[in-house]
């Protein structure tokens, strides 16, 4: 499991906490791993450790620290309500400032991956943060509201065809607006990466993770080995 670190936001100077997982063996790059609405949960920490196993130095920032330090809740209705409230109280400009600080704390190449609300935040980082080499956004419903911005680095998007919270029309709008950006669809629902969710889909999660690792490898994250 990772260690707790602190970083200072470029947005307002606020010092927020983050979870850092050290890379196993040779370092492929840095990875900013962005939480779901539920905070930096055990699931997010496990994902961070998994990418660290693959050779990434991973930092998962606690993006709700101004509202509730150390926030992490379950997928139950109460947790969902609190997570939604925090996400709505967290402006994108602030998120971008926080994420820029995380990117700056990592040696290049730096990649970004995020899930759910963090999927939209990943899009935001690709559009606004300096020094992002590539990004992978998982089922980001609110990418729709950030569609006018254009990513400055290679990015791939993952959505579940059966995601009740993201109708495929929304996905098609993104595709029409940004036809060159790869959008991968999976026969899965929302949050299919998380093994804590009823929507967990192991095959889809594996394939999406593999596509993500390959994007990073092809975007400067190779170790030069075979």
């Amino acid at each position, binding site marked *: 499991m990772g260690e707790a670190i602190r970083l200072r936001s470029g947005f307002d100077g606020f010092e927020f906490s983050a979870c850092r997982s050290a890379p196993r*063996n*040779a370092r492929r790059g840095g990875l900013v791993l962005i939480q779901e609405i539920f905070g930096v949960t055990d699931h997010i920490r496990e994902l961070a450790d998994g990418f660290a196993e693959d050779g990434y130095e991973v930092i998962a920032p606690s993006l709700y620290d101004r509202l509730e330090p150390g926030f992490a809740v379950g997928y139950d209705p109460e947790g969902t309500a609190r997570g939604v409230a925090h996400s709505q109280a967290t402006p994108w400009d602030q998120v971008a400032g926080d994420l820029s600080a995380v990117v700056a704390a990592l040696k290049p190449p730096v990649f970004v991956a995020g899930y759910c609300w963090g999927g939209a935040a990943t899009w935001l980082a690709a559009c606004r943060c300096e020094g992002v080499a590539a990004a992978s956004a998982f089922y980001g419903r609110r990418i729709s509201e950030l569609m006018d911005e254009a990513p400055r680095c290679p990015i791939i998007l993952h959505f579940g065809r059966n995601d009740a919270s993201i109708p495929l029309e929304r996905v098609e709008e993104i595709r029409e607006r940004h036809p060159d950006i790869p959008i991968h669809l999976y026969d899965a629902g929302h949050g299919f990466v998380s093994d804590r969710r009823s929507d967990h889909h192991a095959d889809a999660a594996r394939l999406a993770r*593999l*596509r993500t*690792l*390959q994007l*990073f*490898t*092809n975007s400067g994250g*190779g*170790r030069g*080995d*075979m």
Partner: protein
Amino acid sequence: MGEMIKIKGADGFEFGAYHAAPAGERKGGVIVIQEVFGIDQHVRRDVDRWASLGYEAIAPSMYDRSAPGFEAAHDPEGIQAGLAHMRATPMEQALADVAAVRDHLSPRGKVFVVGYCWGGSVTWLAACELDGIAAASSYYGSMVKANADKRPRCPTIIHLGRLDAGIPCDEVKTAVQAANPGVPVYIYDDAGHGFNNEDPARWSEASSALARQRTLDLFAKA
């Protein structure tokens, strides 16, 4: 998900093998022949996938006599170790072990062989030297060219990546088809060595899917 089993070779040695039971109706047995890296996560993943596609799949641990349970990383040291064990594994012995796995599977139906990298070479030679194989699918085996004039005893297909620095795909195709005009040699333009391997640096999503479909079609009609 599979489990390790033991199979007795012709020499009496019991080697380990990763075995997975078929999902749904059993379509046959598939022997999966490893790369130089041993029975690693990628080989186990491949066995699990053949099982999910309806085959009883077994990957024998081919280096068990010199290094039981050998598994190596895809880094320079791992490659060196894998190549050393490959050289310490005579082809005769490898083919005898494939035959032992065939005998383990054949009471329950047809037996197919698929192999990758060094296992691609073993697959080609198994198709040429062994009876009782219903069909074989050989991926990027570097020793195929030197054995191109051998004749497979069963329907066999070969997959090569155009970006494979170690295997001159056009030359292999010419050599194989000079002796075996009926053997399809598929060349994948976007693929390098190990393109079926789900190592992000090697994997080709499109080519691995196409080669797998061709292999499934071959097995289905054999």
